[in-house]
């Protein structure tokens, strides 16, 4: 089976500064990859390149069998740390905008779909509210539902729980776990190691723009190969 996402020696610069240094990794369809690493190591940049939000300068990036921009509209779903919901639209309209405008669904079809997805992320009764009236956890679940409305083949998550109060983290991770159980291909930047243990097929560790190590949760949690990864895990887990 061909890879859903394949990075081959990906290089990226912000001006003089090299953010990504020959990053190579493959994600198979249905696989769940968790990316972790210290702040500023380039995790967001990797995910943003896959989402076609950033250009890259060297190497190759293959997403669903083509260049990142060549994927169908909404086929690569993205969930941001800051939710990025549309504050002027209701929750329902946040969900239906893409299906109606990008997929050409009728309003009726789009709304049926949206209601079903709100059910799935466990906020069926908030459809008429504006995002600003919801809690952070609810907003992030709306953001997940908004991406799912486009029937993505890959879902990218960039620290989806980092902006949340602790008591709301679980409700978002639960939704992500269910999504994983349904077979979605997922690439998640997160420091929630409990989630990583339960859900990830593989965990990748990045530092200073390099992909240092990739392994299964058992591997990396029992015997990480690099000392940098070991130190990082120590800090995160003791915390």
């Amino acid at each position: 089976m061909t890879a859903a996402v394949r990075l081959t020696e990906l290089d990226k610069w912000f001006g003089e500064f090299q953010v990504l240094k020959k990053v190579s990794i493959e994600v198979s369809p249905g696989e769940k990859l968790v990316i972790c690493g210290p702040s500023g190591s380039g995790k967001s940049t990797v995910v943003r390149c896959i989402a076609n939000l950033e250009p890259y300068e060297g190497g190759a990036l293959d997403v669903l069998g083509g260049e990142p921009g060549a994927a169908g509209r909404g086929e690569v779903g993205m969930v941001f740390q800051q939710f990025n919901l549309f504050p002027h639209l209701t929750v329902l309209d946040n969900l239906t905008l893409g299906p109606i405008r990008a997929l050409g669904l009728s309003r009726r079809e789009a709304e049926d779909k949206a209601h079903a997805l709100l059910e799935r992320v466990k906020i069926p009764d908030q459809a008429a509210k504006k995002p600003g009236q919801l809690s952070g956890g609810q907003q992030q679940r709306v953001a997940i539902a908004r991406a799912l409305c486009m029937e993505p083949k890959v879902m990218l998550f960039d620290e989806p729980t980092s902006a949340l109060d602790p008591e709301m983290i679980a409700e978002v991770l639960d939704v992500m776990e269910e999504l994983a159980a349904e077979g979605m291909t997922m690439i998640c930047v997160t420091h929630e190691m409990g989630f990583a243990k339960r859900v990830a097929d593989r965990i990748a560790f990045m530092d200073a723009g390099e992909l240092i190590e990739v392994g299964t949760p058992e591997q990396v949690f029992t015997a990480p190969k690099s000392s940098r990864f070991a130190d990082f895990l120590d800090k995160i887990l003791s915390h």
Partner: protein
Amino acid sequence: MKRLFPFAALLLLVGCDSQPGTWGWYVIDPTTKAGWTNVQFLMRGFTSTIQVSMLAAVASIMIGLFVALPSLSPSRWVRLPNRIYVEFVRSIPLLPMLFWVFYGLPVVLKSVGINLNIDPFWGAVITLAISDSAFTAEIFRSGIQSVPHGQSEASQTIGLTKSQAMRYVILPQAVRRILPPLANQFIYIVKMSAFASVIGMQELTRRANELVVTEYRPLEIYSLLILEYLVLVLIISAAVRWLERRMGANER
């Protein structure tokens, strides 16, 4: 001191009158037949002042949006035409531009085979629209740029094209930032439309001038003229505040 100045100016104006020191409110006294006729003559200017201002404002908004769009590009070369237009247009004083459009533009058009007579009304509309569009363009640019970048990124990830993102996500949010300064610009247009009097358009100021020539009562007539503009501007301000409240109520 500053507050006393208008008073002093008023007294001076009184002094300019043919009968020094007397007030001649009778020229615009609506209880007398002659006064009422004069008031009506002056007030009929509202129609064209409002028409010119509205048309100019609508045109200015359309030109402004069109001019603002390239300014959002990351490419310096795409942004360049926007900068040139804005810098060039806003450096031209209104009066010379009015003369140029009214007297010059028809000649230019004729030389390229278009026979178009520009009357004072359309001359004023075109001039005000172009002159104002440089400011409108800047208002659009800063309003659009005030919407967080994450909004267009989110739009992109749900499959919207750039223009769909602009239309359904960015502009609706930018509008709340754009509307107050745009309203100020409309007030500016209304006031600047007074310049159209010099090319013979029968708006508020022109009518006041004409009446002054026949009645020799500049103080009273120009006082009423100022009041007329004041009323117009107050109405616009109230309308804008109503609109803002309504949009604010929609937001939350």
